[in-house]
């Protein structure tokens, strides 16, 4: 990026809430039901049908507000945001404008260079989602109202970010917090966690903001980063050529890696917000607020710190293990079986995460139970099996989902620590390789590695490597 310029980025995030029912009616929020089956007179926008607020939506909003250091406004109201679009049958979206439920929050991200950056949250408010338009028809657009009325939290940041990296980190942090709270599944690809970015650039030291462009349709974390980088570059190039930035909405095209101006028949925005007379104000008093606060689980930053202290883990390990609540839970269940915390961390960070990323699955779909992984580590530490054999057992556990004990017994993988047995193998290897014995005796001690390898191979990896090492040294020296 041209160092004369500075980017200014603000993000608007829409998070679908994991309630059973919609925000203002008792229809299901279930994704993927046949079109126009999760609908009723309220979400279809029939005249006279009255919305009634789902209490859980308020609780979820307060949770998110508390988890991001917001002020929870004691009084908040709903407003109508008026615009015409076919997937919004009422002709207005019920949202919050004046008096949102949460304001003035913040969160802190750690950048790749190790520095910290605080990003302010301007507001968090409750609103309803719109329906879905299907545009692939020749002459018409098809409308599915199922999603209409699904509860959303809109989380608006201040324009505090200055790079695509910061935007990416902020978004990841929000997602981490919201999934820890269990109020949203955070799935960007499926659209239950969406992000729009306002991007502008200005000369460094300039106090006024530049003209911004809004980028939509970035349906993955990487796309958010790429789209913002693209837009910053585009705007700087225009300014350098003496041009002017036009305020516009761009749609990110992930196939072409390009942001293109949105073309639609939607009218210029004049939302004419006004308080919705159909809905009573919401009052969150201190008692209710503290009741909700008690239901907030340990949050990622706190849990990360605890992992470092309680399990004596490096920052890096603790950061990865607490990246999702499910992974952190998994790790803690392993530590109920083994006190070798660092090994537990290593196994999860390497072997387990490798399986997850290769299979594109989450830890909740991982076949090996934390108890079985813990037991595997116990079996290594009490010398029943070597690490090498343990990796074999691990692969077998992935296939058969059996307990490590059973696999070791069935496959005859017990580590050989019986010295007589190992000595027999060593004798065989020594007799078979007289030249290497001579090399060893002439002072080439490195050859010992070759012998260890041969013995391990002979024993099919089952010989206890420590005993092999000791006995080999003794036996080879005796050859003099």
């Amino acid at each position, binding site marked *: 990026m041209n160092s004369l310029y500075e980017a200014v980025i603000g993000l608007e995030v829409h998070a679908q809430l994991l309630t059973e029912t919609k925000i203002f009616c*008792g229809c299901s929020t279930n994704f993927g039901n046949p079109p126009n089956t999760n609908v*009723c007179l309220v979400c279809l926008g029939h005249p006279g049908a009255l919305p009634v607020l*789902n209490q859980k939506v308020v609780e979820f909003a307060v949770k998110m507000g508390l988890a991001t250091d917001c002020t929870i406004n004691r009084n908040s109201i709903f407003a109508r945001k008026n615009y015409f679009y*076919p997937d919004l049958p009422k002709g207005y979206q019920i949202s919050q404008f004046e008096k949102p439920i949460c304001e003035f929050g913040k969160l802190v991200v750690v950048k790749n260079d190790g520095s910290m950056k605080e990003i302010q949250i301007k507001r968090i408010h409750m609103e309803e989602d719109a329906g879905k338009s299907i*545009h692939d028809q020749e002459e*018409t657009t098809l*409308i599915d109202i199922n999603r209409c009325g699904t509860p959303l939290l809109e989380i608006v940041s201040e324009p505090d970010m200055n790079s695509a990296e910061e935007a990416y980190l902020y978004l990841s942090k929000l997602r981490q917090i919201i999934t820890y709270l269990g109020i949203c599944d955070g799935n960007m690809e499926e659209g239950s966690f969406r992000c729009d970015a306002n991007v502008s650039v200005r000369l460094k030291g300039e106090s006024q903001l530049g003209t911004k462009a809004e980028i939509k349709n970035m349906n993955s974390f990487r796309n958010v980063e790429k789209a913002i980088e693209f837009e910053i570059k585009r705007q700087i190039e225009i300014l350098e050529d003496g041009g002017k930035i036009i305020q516009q909405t761009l749609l990110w095209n992930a196939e072409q890696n390009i942001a293109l101006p949105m073309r639609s028949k939607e009218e210029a925005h004049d939302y004419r917000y006004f*308080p919705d007379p159909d809905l009573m104000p919401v009052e969150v008093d201190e008692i209710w607020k503290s009741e909700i606060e008690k239901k907030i689980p340990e949050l990622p930053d706190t849990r990360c710190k605890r992992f470092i202290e309680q399990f004596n883990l490096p920052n890096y390990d603790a950061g990865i293990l607490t990246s999702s609540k499910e992974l952190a839970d998994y790790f803690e269940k392993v530590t109920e079986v083994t006190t070798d915390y660092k090994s537990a961390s290593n196994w999860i960070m390497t072997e387990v995460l490798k399986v997850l990323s290769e299979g594109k699955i989450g830890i909740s779909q991982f076949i090996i139970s934390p108890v079985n992984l813990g037991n595997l580590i116990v079996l290594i530490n009490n010398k029943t099996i070597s690490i090498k054999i343990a990796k074999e057992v691990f692969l077998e556990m992935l296939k058969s989902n059996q307990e490590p004990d059973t696999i070791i017994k069935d496959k005859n993988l017990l580590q050989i620590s019986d010295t007589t047995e190992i000595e027999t193998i060593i004798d065989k290897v020594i007799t078979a390789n007289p030249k290497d014995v001579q090399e060893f005796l002439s002072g080439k001690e490195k050859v010992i590695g070759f012998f260890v390898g041969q013995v391990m191979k002979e024993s099919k990896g089952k010989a206890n490597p420590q005993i092999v090492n000791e006995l080999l040294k003794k036996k080879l020296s005796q050859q003099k």
Partner: protein
Amino acid sequence: MAVTIEDVKYIANLSHLKFDEKELESFTHQFNEILTFFEKLNELNTDNVVPLSHPVENVNVFREDVLVSSVEREEALKNSPDRNDNYFKVPKVINK
């Protein structure tokens, strides 16, 4: 604050309504009359009055997060001017 014919055209456009010149003039006149009527309120001193968002003093009217059966799809679609078996149909929205 006088309403001009341009204001009326703007509001008509936002409301997706079309009027002829005569109607536009008539509405301009009516809008101005309504606003003049409300100007009367400016005679009151409201410096210390909190804005009212709802005439009824009641808060926290909630429902539990419990499923209520939805209407049948056929029922939902039946008043629609255009439809197919599963969807509402509207004129094409995006210019492709």
